[in-house]
């Protein structure tokens, strides 16, 4: 018999998991890029990789403390955004898409190559950079929570920091989008030429948006690697596509959308793959192997992404009028 209670419990864990928070941060960054400014950034995986590697390399190779490692990651992210933006922000939207996707693949290949093994750990990646973060933990050793949410002090600390960041940055983005700056950004999305006619420097506003959203992605990348190791294969373009799915699920031009989208995405993904794996084990799907059961989740994500864009492009929270820019 399929253990539905276990499936529900496993899915519930995803509601507060640090991975969900990391994806929410990255999707929030993408909401600033794509939802509010209309920038087609396909390199969010690259921004996340810079956060992960910037933090891990400064801690392991350079021996930096936590705050300096975070700053190195954020600095790297600003440089990356400038490198991407300077050649492409004056061009049509699809050029930014091609350049960002290419740049994030360049980063992944550079992090994977054997010739930089001493610094990046090549295909095996990096681990052992968590001590500094764990030492900052003010929570005493023990077991916390209830039911499926039972965790030790490190996991609790990680969740507090991860979701704290989501809340703070979510509020920041909300205030920014209500500010005059946000109105210019949304104006650029609707009609670039009209904003230019008002005397605004569209190029600089786009650049600021690219940097800001990239920083969100970089912080997401740091949270993403704190419960696991840094592995270059995680930063393939598929990661960017998952974040787009989350963003479109919640609503592209909203603040709550990417956050709730990330929770819904991970809960559904866990529930569906948990159900398929267990149902396959008790023989509900004849002709499906356990390996095949594990792959169905990606097929489902792909189909859901297509259906979302075709039938509900505004997502859960979005307003269809705000998507008129997507031509």
């Amino acid at each position, binding site marked *: 018999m399929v253990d539905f209670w276990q499936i529900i419990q496993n899915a519930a864990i995803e509601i507060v998991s640090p991975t969900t928070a990391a994806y929410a941060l990255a999707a929030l960054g993408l909401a600033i890029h794509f939802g509010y400014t209309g920038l087609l950034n396909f390199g969010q995986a690259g921004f996340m990789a810079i956060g992960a590697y910037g933090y891990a390399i400064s801690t392991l190779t350079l021996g930096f403390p936590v705050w300096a490692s975070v700053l190195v990651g954020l600095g790297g992210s600003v440089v990356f955004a400038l490198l991407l933006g300077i050649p492409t922000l004056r061009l049509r939207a699809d050029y930014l898409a091609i350049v960002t996707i290419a740049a994030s693949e360049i980063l992944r290949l550079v992090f994977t*190559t054997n010739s930089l093994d001493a610094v990046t750990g090549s295909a095996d990646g990096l681990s052992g950079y968590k001590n500094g973060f764990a030492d900052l933990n003010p929570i005493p050793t023990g077991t916390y929570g209830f039911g499926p949410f039972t965790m030790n002090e490190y996991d609790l600390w990680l969740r507090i920091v991860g979701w704290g960041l989501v809340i703070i940055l979510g509020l920041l983005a909300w205030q920014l989008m209500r500010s005059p700056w946000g109105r210019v950004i949304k104006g650029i999305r609707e009609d670039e030429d009209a904003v230019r006619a008002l005397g605004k420097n569209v190029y600089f506003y786009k650049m600021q948006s690219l940097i800001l959203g990239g920083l969100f992605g970089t912080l997401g990348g740091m949270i993403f690697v704190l419960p696991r190791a840094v592995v270059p294969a995680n930063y393939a373009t598929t990661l960017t596509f998952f974040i787009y799915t989350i963003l479109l699920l919640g609503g592209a031009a909203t603040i709550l959308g990417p956050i709730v989208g990330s929770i819904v995405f991970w809960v559904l993904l866990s529930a569906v793959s948990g159900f398929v794996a267990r149902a396959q084990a008790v023989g509900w799907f004849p002709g499906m192997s356990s390996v095949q059961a594990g792959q169905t989740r990606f097929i489902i*994500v*792909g189909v859901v992404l297509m259906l979302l864009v075709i039938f509900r492009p505004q997502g859960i929270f979005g307003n269809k009028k705000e998507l008129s820019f997507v031509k």
Partner: protein
Amino acid sequence: MEVTGLVSTRVQRLLVIVFVGLLASLAFVGGATAAHADEVGTEYDFSLQGFVRNDGEPIQDVLISVSGNGYTAEVVTDADGKWLIGVPDKGTYSITLDESTLPTGIIVTDAANPDVSNTVELTIDATNSKTYNFFLGAGVRETTSFLDQLIQRAVTGLGFGLMLALAAIGLSLIFGTTGLSNFAHAEMVTFGALAALTLAVDLALPLGIALVGALVLSGAFGWGLDAALWKPLRRKGVGLIPMMIVSIGLSLALRYLYQYFYGGSTRQLPGADGLDLKFGPISLSPLDMLSMAISIVVLLGVAFFLLRTRIGKATRAVSDNPSLASASGIDVDRVIRIVWVIGGALAGLSGILYAFYRPGVSWDMGFQILLLIFAAVTLGGLGTAFGALVGSLIVGLFIEVSTLWIPSDMKYVGALVILILVLLVRPQGILGRKERIG
């Protein structure tokens, strides 16, 4: 198979020599103390080992290095010429003997196998250790001259570029006529190779029939995608960016559907082996030459179609201005349907040729070159068919030639950097027109 036989008799002979040598050395030391081999990484469960001897004479202090799976180690041989390197995991490692540490006039060589190199690939799978003895002999290492290497790389790159061009032209035609940046094009490339695999291996049809069948299926696949998905979306008035995201979802779903049905392994098409032929500095297999010839003929055919036939001219007219084309009596939907069929067949052909080039068929092979196809199309000029050809040749040549200077696992980096640099100075691409960048 003959080659393997020769090698194994060689190995046997060498083992005899080694054995006799061991007995002799034991006789000299009197069997009291067996000299310790120089060993590193003995804390690991798996190991690579061997002897370095020339005519039974052990050679000391030869530098052997191992790299692979993110692990590297070095060791020098002991008085018996023995070395051992422990490795952390099963897998494939490359072992290099540093020839500069051999006595003068001795190199890694083998009369029976002139291609033997001082670097070999060893795979640890079933057993915990693997032994390899380098064949040594008198001689001087002849290094291939830089120019010869450059010519060889350029020819290989040209072949790769022609293969990319087949896929890139399809992508460019689809972009030109519909405005869609089709991320699922990679899966159309994979589809051709998988169809060929199914027909030629699983259904055991003759190779020629299987390949033609795979091309027909690829064309039908392109038609099916247009009829079932893209045409209804165009009717619905879905914008270009949402369509592009739909193609990303389609790419994800198709790719994992392939993995679902074909598994994660790499399988070979029949006829993938063949001996290389030498033309001066260039060595090519008959298959490489056939592949290049097919690409060139097909590309010429596409050029003839676009420049000389009615439908081809209509296609270019739709690329230029769909409304104007429609107003002058061209059936735009029919042209787009034909473009999808041609694009599907070209992508399928490119997938089959890529399966021979890599070699092997796997579920994500198209996705591995998707960005290169995009780079080629953008480099040449979005939406221009001949630009895609030029861009593909540049990308192919650049990837292969750049391996003369940069490590081969970074060769795609060079092509992508070139893409970004070209966009900096000439955003419309090499053959693109300025108005297209808007």
